[in-house]
């Protein structure tokens, strides 16, 4: 009896522990759920449904893999232009219209496919929708007047000054100033050569024959060289600039990471307990690392871009500063964990402190050091994209610019694919190097 009063039996301890565990098993998910509910309320998740614009999502998804061609008639001058994405650099020259647009005098016929025909003429414009009828628009007193089979479906929107028709074959807009038809086609148009290039519209076989044969299009250079330069300087996609931007981003990551490692290595000896017996100095070194790390890349980037202006060097310095803090902390921890025996062995041969560090310490921490540096190199490739967006350099800048204009989503898709490829490439490169250098094969 006295035993149970002083020390509870095993069964009681186990039961109590089980009861506690069971309570925890309910309490932790409940706490997580409660937090998520609080977050949902504070983030205004309910209001999101109204703010979300799913038409934007549809535009974005279709733009990712399709391009549109604008056929525009200026209603004042009666001139018709056919331009890819409505851009000057994608405008078809008068003699070379795509085969689905026909211009006879002032009558323009646009075949959108599957029986959808749009006609612009002197009286106005007409859109024949199969299975529905003809939408006829005539300007009267400057305002478009619509004649269409009643009832007007919801894919035709009519306001005072504008008529918009959206079908699955394309889009059609009529306003006072101009009438426009958009035809969507799959693929990234003009990806290889723009319209003004002599190589536009040729098949791969033709291009290969041109590249190999001797008849020069431009007598001053070979066809292959001309082709490559036309591709590289493509005005629509700017492959050359994009390649430079990718290179700049990788350069920022490489310079930043390596410089950080070079700065942090000597300083980390100051912060390691077994190498620096002076407490205050050690404390100071550690606080410097903490400060540099804590200020964070964002703040460094802002401060530095004020001094050095936008560009890759600013980004590289910002990465170097932030990461020298992280490296300093990790390296000094690695230094504190080394095996002292090797250092003593070197010391017994009469080596001075520099030699002890070189032959006794560095070989021990090299694997940790290398794997951390390579890991950071890979993750900094990703950060360099973001930092590039802030300092204005590299692919990050191109990406944010393309997104902010909210127009050329296929360019955004192109950059996204390139960024993902770049990060994956750096990922496997750093993994391969790590294996090679550390496993020592």
């Amino acid at each position, binding site marked *: 009896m006295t035993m149970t009063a002083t020390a509870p039996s095993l069964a009681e301890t186990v039961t109590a522990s089980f009861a506690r565990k069971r309570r925890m098993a309910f309490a932790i998910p409940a706490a*997580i759920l409660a*937090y*998520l509910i609080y*977050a949902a309320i*504070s*983030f*205004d*998740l309910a209001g*999101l449904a109204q*703010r*979300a*614009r*799913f038409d*934007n999502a549809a535009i*974005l998804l279709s733009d990712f893999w399709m391009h549109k061609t604008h056929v525009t008639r200026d209603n004042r001058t009666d001139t018709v232009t056919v331009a890819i994405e409505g851009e000057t650099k994608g405008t078809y020259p008068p003699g070379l219209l795509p085969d689905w647009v026909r211009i006879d005098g002032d009558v323009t016929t646009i075949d959108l496919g599957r029986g959808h025909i749009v006609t612009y003429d002197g009286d106005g414009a007409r859109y024949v929708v199969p299975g529905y009828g003809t939408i006829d628009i005539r300007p009267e007193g400057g305002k478009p007047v619509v004649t269409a089979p009643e009832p007007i479906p919801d894919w035709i929107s009519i306001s005072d000054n504008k008529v918009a028709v959206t079908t699955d074959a394309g889009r059609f807009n009529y306003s006072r100033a101009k009438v426009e038809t958009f035809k969507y086609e799959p693929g990234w148009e003009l990806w290889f050569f723009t319209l003004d290039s002599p190589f536009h519209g040729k098949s791969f076989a033709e291009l290969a024959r041109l590249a190999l044969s001797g008849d020069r299009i431009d007598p001053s250079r070979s066809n292959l060289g001309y082709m490559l330069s036309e591709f590289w300087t493509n005005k629509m996609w700017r492959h050359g600039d994009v390649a430079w931007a990718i290179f*700049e981003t990788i*350069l*920022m990551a*490489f*310079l930043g990471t*390596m*410089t950080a490692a070079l700065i942090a290595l000597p300083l980390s000896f100051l912060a390691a307990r077994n190498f620096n017996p002076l407490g205050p100095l050690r404390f100071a070194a550690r606080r410097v690392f*903490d400060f540099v*790390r*804590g*200020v*964070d*890349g*964002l*703040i460094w980037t*802002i*401060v*530095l871009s*004020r*001094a*050095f*202006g*936008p*560009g*890759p*060097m*600013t980004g*590289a310095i910002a990465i170097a500063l932030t990461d020298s803090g992280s490296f300093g902390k990790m390296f000094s921890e690695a230094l504190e964990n080394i095996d002292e025996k090797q250092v003593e062995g070197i010391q017994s041969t009469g080596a001075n402190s520099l030699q002890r560090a070189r032959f006794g310490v560095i070989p021990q921490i090299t694997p940790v050091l290398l794997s951390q540096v390579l890991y950071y190199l890979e993750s900094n490739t*990703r950060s360099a*994209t*973001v930092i590039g*967006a*802030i300092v204005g*350099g590299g692919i990050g800048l191109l*990406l*944010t610019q393309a*997104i902010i204009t*909210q127009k050329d989503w296929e360019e*955004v898709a192109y950059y*996204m694919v390139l*960024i*993902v490829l770049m*990060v*994956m490439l750096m*990922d496997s490169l750093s993994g391969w190097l790590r294996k090679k250098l550390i496993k020592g094969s």
Partner: protein
Amino acid sequence: MVDVAFGPGQGQRPDLSNRNEAYLDMVRRKRMYGGILLVVFVALMASGWKLAEHRNAGGFLNGLHQVFDFPSEVLSEAWTNRANLPGLFWDHVPALIETVNIAAVATLIGALAAMSLSLLATRGLARWPALIPVFRRTMDGLRAIPEIVIALVLIYILGGGPVPAVIAIALHTGGALGKLFSEVAENADLKPVEGLQSVGANWSQRMWLGVIPQVAPNWLSYALLRFEINVRASAILGFVGEGGIGHDLKLAMQWGQGRYDEVVAIFALLFLAIVVIDHVSDHFRHKLVKGH
């Protein structure tokens, strides 16, 4: 004799008749490789910095003496208006809480996704062993897309606010943590799992009762580390996109002179928050991993 016959090629074997010479030869060769690597590295760094400086708007030496211009300008203005600082500090606390909330929710959702992804992608534990490569590639893909890409695209669709940032960070976290979680789970002891299987437990019971208790400390430690990273990411996303303290900072910076006291207040708040979060999470991670 056996390794003479079956060992590596004759040419690579050191000639042991003269041991000193052979050793020095090896050292020389090693030094030469090291030297070549060093020269290549130095050349890469030097030309890299040169190129980066060339493509930068301002040069390094011209900018160097200006590095402290902006901070001192900001600090001096803040010093003259120092009476405002405590008030401004409090004004931006809600934005800071939003930033931390974004990071916390994203870490939570990302970690939950990473838990299931990692178990499905670990050899020996996977529910459908044939699908392991699929889940691995999924995690690689999630990890490879920078947060800013997803965030900016989602801002276009969902409008402003914290939700795009949460989704962007959560997706990236799912991929990054999934890989680390799966590395931990690979080293888990399979005996409890077999024991549970022998009493007829299904897959989720085996994982929940046999694997999770073993890996929980390491997983939690990684999740805390990720939370630290995500707080920074959420501040940066606010600066580039919308929401949280990063956005306040951008607005104050754009205003420029006259609101530098606000800039200082936000800088200080962000700095303090990051340091405090780092320390707290460091403390708990030590506790979790060392077990006391």
